[in-house]
């Protein structure tokens, strides 16, 4: 554990856990328990590293020791008939401990970002995709198409790190055309050249991807428009995409928040497959925030199934709809919510009358005081850990930046499991 000096000490090459890019080049100053981002930060890093650091466990709103809160959590868990371990924003070790606990108690596992994540998962499970990773884009992409919304608010340094770099492995200087689909380029973002924008309805993008795919395959369409934009615009885009040497289309599933958005993601991915008949083109599904891809990865490798898996029958039972947190709470099919949120105090549990145990970042403000609240450390701030990046390839080691009395999610869950054993 590093000593937390009174005078600031500077730490370099810090990995930042506050979005799925997990940038590992930050420079921060640490003084006592205050962390200030000095270089290579962003809005999310500044907020994340600067958040409240103190808090103590509570049982029914009253201060309690960690041991008492853990024991109470174990008591609630042992008497629950169908517990739900939700939230699940944690690191690799937290996910390992949660999976073990779920197996032991017959709980359901469901990450807070799963509703959006399944728009990708269902596509991948039904027809697959062709994807790429950040360093490939940084060096190879000569065309980037950005789908919908504002990926910069979720992944602030994406363009800085992948598009506006000076040199690539294959060229001095950088040329990458950027086209925004559905919404204009966000203000204040530096791009290599003036970005183009195609105005269209994001919720109808599935039509556009279908039309693009047909045009890429050389078919003639009778329709005059798609997704609210004239067909000539899509024909132009199809031609431009086919001409790319290494094109990339990036999207972030939270931006595709409309019914059956997985079909839009699928249309996009099938279009990318079509492009690869003659050139190279890849998708970039952006994710990884709140540890979602980390936790999914751990669950998958241990059991074969990700979020929305129940262990109630003594074996994994996976159903993307039946075991969704909102469904289980809404239908009264769970009688205990274990909510885990170690990166962001704003990610509070959903409103429910079901008894709730929260392992949360200090500073959480609740609409309804949980039965048990245990403040936990943040991986990469209060304790070491590991987090997977958006591409689910790179697992970065997170360091401990300050001395902290806050326990990790893994240690609390392990203690709960041990307490169950003694009961």
């Amino acid at each position, binding site marked *: 554990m590093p000593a937390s000096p009174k005078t600031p000490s500077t730490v370099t090459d810090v990995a930042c856990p506050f979005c799925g890019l997990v940038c590992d080049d930050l420079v921060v100053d640490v003084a006592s328990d205050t962390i200030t981002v000095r270089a290579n930060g962003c809005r999310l890093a500044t907020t994340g590293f600067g958040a409240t650091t103190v808090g103590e466990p509570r049982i029914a709103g009253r201060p309690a020791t960690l041991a008492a809160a853990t024991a109470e959590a174990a008591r609630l868990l042992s008497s629950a008939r169908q517990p739900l371990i939700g939230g699940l924003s944690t690191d690799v070790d937290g996910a390992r401990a949660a999976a073990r606990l779920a197996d032991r108690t017959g709980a359901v596992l469901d990450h807070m970002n799963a509703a959006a994540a399944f728009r990708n998962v269902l596509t991948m*499970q*039904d027809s697959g995709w062709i994807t790429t990773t950040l*360093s490939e884009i940084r060096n190879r992409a000569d065309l980037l198409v950005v789908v919908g919304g504002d990926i910069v608010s979720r992944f602030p340094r994406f363009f800085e790190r992948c598009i506006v770099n000076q040199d690539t492995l294959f060229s001095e200087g950088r040329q990458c055309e950027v086209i925004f689909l559905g919404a204009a380029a966000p203000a204040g973002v530096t791009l290599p050249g003036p970005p183009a924008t195609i105005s269209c309805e994001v919720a109808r993008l599935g039509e556009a991807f279908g039309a693009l795919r047909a045009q890429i395959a050389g078919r003639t369409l009778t329709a005059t428009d798609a997704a609210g934009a004239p067909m000539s615009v899509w024909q132009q885009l199809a031609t431009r995409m086919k001409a790319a040497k290494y094109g990339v289309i990036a999207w972030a599933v939270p931006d595709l928040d409309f019914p059956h958005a997985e079909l839009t993601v699928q249309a996009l991915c099938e279009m990318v497959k079509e492009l690869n008949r003659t*050139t190279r083109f890849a998708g970039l599904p952006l994710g990884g925030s709140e540890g979602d891809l980390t936790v999914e990865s751990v669950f998958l490798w241990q*059991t*074969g199934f990700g979020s929305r898996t129940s262990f109630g029958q003594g074996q994994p039972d996976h159903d993307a709809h039946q075991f969704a947190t909102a469904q289980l709470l809404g239908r009264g099919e769970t009688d205990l919510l274990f909510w885990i949120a170690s990166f962001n105090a704003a990610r509070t549990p959903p409103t429910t009358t079901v008894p709730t145990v929260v392992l949360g970042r200090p500073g959480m403000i609740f609409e309804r005081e949980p039965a048990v609240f245990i403040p936990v450390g943040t991986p990469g701030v209060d304790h070491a850990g590991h987090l997977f990046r958006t591409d689910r390839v790179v*697992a970065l080691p997170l360091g401990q930046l300050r001395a902290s009395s806050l326990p990790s999610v893994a240690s609390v869950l392990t203690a709960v499991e041990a307490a169950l054993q003694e009961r």
Partner: protein
Amino acid sequence: MLLRLTGGRVYDPAHGVDGVVRDLFVRDGRMTAPPAADERIDREYDLSGRIVMAGAIDMHTHIGGGKMNIARQMLPEDHRSDLVRRTDLTRSSCGHAAPGTLATGYRYAEMGYTACFEPAVLPVNARQAHMEMGDTPMVDKGGYAMLGSDDFLLRLMAAGEDQKLINDYVAWTLNATRCIGIKVVNPGGISAFKFNQRMLDLDEKHQYYGVTPRDILRVLSRAVHELGVPHPLHVHSSNLGLPGNFESTLGTIRASEGLPIHLTHIQFHSYGTEGDRKFSSAAAQIAEAINSTPNASCDVGQILFGQTVTASGDAMAQYRNSGLASPKKFVIMDIECDAGCGVLPFKYRDKNFVNALQWAIGLEIFLLARDPWRVFLTTDHPNGAPFTTYPHLIRLLMDRSFRNDRLAQLNVDAQALTTLGSIEREYTLNEIAILTRAAPAKLLGIEDIGHLAPGAIADITVYRDNADREVMFTSPEYVFKDGEVIVRDGKVVKVIWGRYHTVQPEYDRGIEQRLRDHYERYQTIRADHLRISAEEMHAFGHGADVLTHPCR
């Protein structure tokens, strides 16, 4: 703790012991010489009539890393056919084609395996591979780091840099990724595919770098040799799956210019172009080449019929084959200027001409390759078949009439194009013990596994003799790991977590600054963050020891 294993028929080919009835002794987890007559034996196991071998070693099995997790995510329907229930001792998981790490460990041990090696560890993904292997109980594990389509190496080669610098890079990679060997997959081809090249033959130039697969094989096999890494360069050759690829496979065998070379899943690289369908067996030519090239070894990558999933670093070949996926879905990925991967579910059908011939080609290679020390028993799990089919494969090798009965059920056109039915050879138990124990340990350079002499780690598998070798090898009576019984009658009775095997060759640290600069300028992660610490490994592996084996 002193154990006596009495009266078993022992197969320990590393020491020329071929079915000799003898007592074995274990002291504190290791094999030991017979103790003095007055020493107290703590526990005795009567193994009369039993067959005793060292714990088996799978030297090429995809058990951990990103592409297997993609496969797991893609195949919920396959998992549902083989859900694994929790017990008081073991956790729930899933089995079959893309099993969870927990079931992988349980089932390997239940089949008598005590060590598994993941052959395709992408350096940027090495941490995940070790996390997954760490969560694989029961067995020892290790990985081969993949090089050969990474832009750092290709740039060094294109710039004509000295072999010494390449050696430093290879050694740095082994140290940073905590692996035990170096693998090359479709040399240069994964990179060429990113430049839209769809093929890269052995002597064809990469369009950007101007180097050929043969150049890459030469510098990497030389690096591995000069660094003294015991495991030879582990090669997945060019042109996987293509009719006529046996020519480039023969070229690959020669490409190391006399240095040790291991050709993996060689069945997928032994195809000719004869016959009406322009697809034929070249197993005879390939086996002859292996027989006459003492520096070469191979594992077969046998296919067996049924549903599985193919997961490979060879994005170029996997994209080429993507139309064959069953069910119809595939994932192709370009990865971090380092490598790539492709995942396709696949169903091998016995009435399909190509699949039936693939089956026969694999068996022909097993049976025509003469030296069992240079042929290894693999299905390239899960690419040819899940590892749980090994007992069936062993029976095919040991039982000619069983093999020929099976052959008679296959696609008739394929039957007409294989010599398999006329091959009389049946593997002996001693040879099976070589293929699955003694030879892999030797090829990996691990001195204390794969045999039963005093000093060896007491990983021991005890089978009930049974003329049906499939039954015999499916369910050992005992599996000992480090001298403890971990499996009894084919079921886990104690959960342990195994250890990691690595090598850490010496190198000139000057390469590190060069890598830092390269990563800072071009990549999106710091070079130093690729390096996995011993403490991390220890934590991934539930307290696993991380063993470093000597380089020569």
